[in-house]
């Protein structure tokens, strides 16, 4: 158990430190690598919580797919260095102060809170006896949570269409009757 706790603090510390790196580092590529490290540490935390499936998904989707996109965007936009503008304070002191205040407040609230809900049926023994975690998650996702799953699919469709409409360059021309149309 103590190894567990040590490992937790180890990964949690790196996760927080690299997350701070994401917002403070100047070179955007360094920020991206920092983000990658955060994703890895969060995946490790999932493993410590015995959520192996989530850890794998975290690695595949966040560390894999999303990181590739982030790096592509950095290459396309070609902002190597986020140089401070004249007159701009590099890290707003007020924001840091408020952020630290909120952090300690939240920490107090969460330490004082009563997080002891009734446990569900999905214990490690139950998972082992019923075909493993991945199978059970699949079952729950497509039965109990089928409806949110469907809304999420519409949501992603909308976001995708938005991603196509908003940045595409389009020209409009008038047709004979004075009505516009897209070219």
């Amino acid at each position, binding site marked *: 158990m103590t190894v567990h706790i040590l490992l937790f603090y180890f990964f949690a510390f790196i996760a927080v430190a690299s997350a701070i790196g994401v917002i403070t580092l100047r070179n955007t590529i360094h920020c991206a690598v920092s983000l990658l490290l955060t994703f890895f540490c969060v995946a490790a935390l999932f493993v410590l919580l015995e959520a192996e499936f989530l850890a794998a998904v975290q690695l595949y989707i966040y560390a894999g797919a999303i990181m590739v996109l982030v790096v592509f965007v950095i290459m396309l936009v070609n902002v190597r260095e986020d140089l401070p503008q004249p007159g701009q304070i590099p890290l707003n002191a007020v924001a840091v102060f408020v952020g630290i205040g909120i952090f300690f407040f939240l920490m107090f609230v969460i330490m004082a809170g009563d997080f002891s*809900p009734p446990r569900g049926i999905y214990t490690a023994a139950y998972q082992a006896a019923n075909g493993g975690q991945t199978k059970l998650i699949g079952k729950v996702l497509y039965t109990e949570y089928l409806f949110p799953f469907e809304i999420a699919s519409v949501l992603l469709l909308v976001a995708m269409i938005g991603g196509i409409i*908003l940045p595409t360059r389009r020209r409009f021309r008038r047709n004979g009757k004075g009505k516009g149309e897209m070219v």
Partner: protein
Amino acid sequence: MANLLPSVQDILLLTPEIIILLSGLLILLITPFVEPKYQRITPSLAIAGSLLAFIASQSLGAGHRVILNGMISVSLYSAFFQNIFLIVNFLVVLLSLTYLEEEFANMGEYYAMLMFATLGMMLMAASSDLLSIFLALELMSVSLYILAGYFRRHSESNEAAIKYYLTGVLASAFMLYGISLIYGITGTTNLRAVGDFIGVSGSLARDPALGMAMLMLVMGFGFKIAAVPFHMWLPDVYEGSPTCVTAFMSVGPKAAGFAAVLRVFYVGLGSLRLEWTVIFAILSVLTMTTGNLLALTQKSVKRMLAYSSIAHAGYAILGLTVAGTALEGAGMSSLLFYMFSYLFMNVGAFAVLILLRKKALTSESLDDFNGLAQRAPFLAFLMAILLLSLTGLPPTVGFVGKFYVFGAVIQVALTGNGFYGLLAVIAVVNAAISAFYYLRLLMNIYLKDGAETLTWRYSHSLMFVIVFSALATLYFGIFPGSILSLAQQSVKILL
């Protein structure tokens, strides 16, 4: 765990939503193949979809059924809000038609986004689980971000989309944090189960983490209904968005936000009602007063309507504060009626702004309406009805809406609660302030002389929306009984 897959009867209860979804998908599907001269086919599909869904929604019956593993509860309550959304959708499609054609932006995607936003709002009103509420809210919000930035060539529209997106994402993050705390404490996201769990254990209602979760939800929803101090995004977003989108945004998402707020706080966090009643009371005072005072100083009509919509949200939050007292039924039904009354007057007022506007997207100032009554007496008369309703003067629906909200507050005050007496006084003072700027515009229209500075963009569909809104404003102002009893029956499922 036995019957987890939805039955056909359950799915049929979602017919209105499915019709809206299918019409949105159909619009997307045919858009690339529509010849430019038939470009009106997509708005026609949108209109047909919303009318069909409206009819389907009427035939669902009055029962209260919880379906899809507690994710959705179909009832009069959800139907009441869904009817508001479908009417808004119908009117806004009509508003958009000629407006978008003149801006050379009449494309199918716009109507598809409108349908998906409506779908999100309908699901939000019907959701009875924090998870489905959040996803429906995101569906609505993402569609609205896209709609706000739809006029890509205008920098104002881009600015509106960026501001709306960044503040909206922040609000969603707060809300999600609150939801995760609630899940950590209660072990469930179902609102009934959350309410029961907190209610059964006596000490949990004083739990600091639960209080924090409640505050996070107040912040998240506060952004969506634009309560002060979470309103900063609203004026620029409303001014920069295409006017037809502004008309949609000022009614739909607000009503959807209130539908979800009422469920989350009354059903899920009912044990904390002493706390949230005070929070909402403070928010409503801030919202009403700030909205009205800032509206007073505006030169642009669109911006004035934006600030006044903040003030109207403040009046509606009054209904929420009453929902946390012994007169909960009166508070909730007055809120529902207020949302209904707000629909027609606001969409109508924005329709007038689309009919009479300047060449560019720039805003029409108050002085541009000088002497409108001499140039267009009929339109001036319709605008007068809408403005009287926004002010809250009889015989319009705006009066009835304010009357029931204020009446509910005064009823609580009469039970010996001096705090609510103060609220009622502040609300009435605010109504008087709002009269000043609405009636100033009315005075410009009727009493001042002015030259024609606005371009007259007449179209039948636009005129239909204005006449329809003005007539509905008058009709429900004189005969509010049917809607009022519907609102009272609707909130029974929450009680």
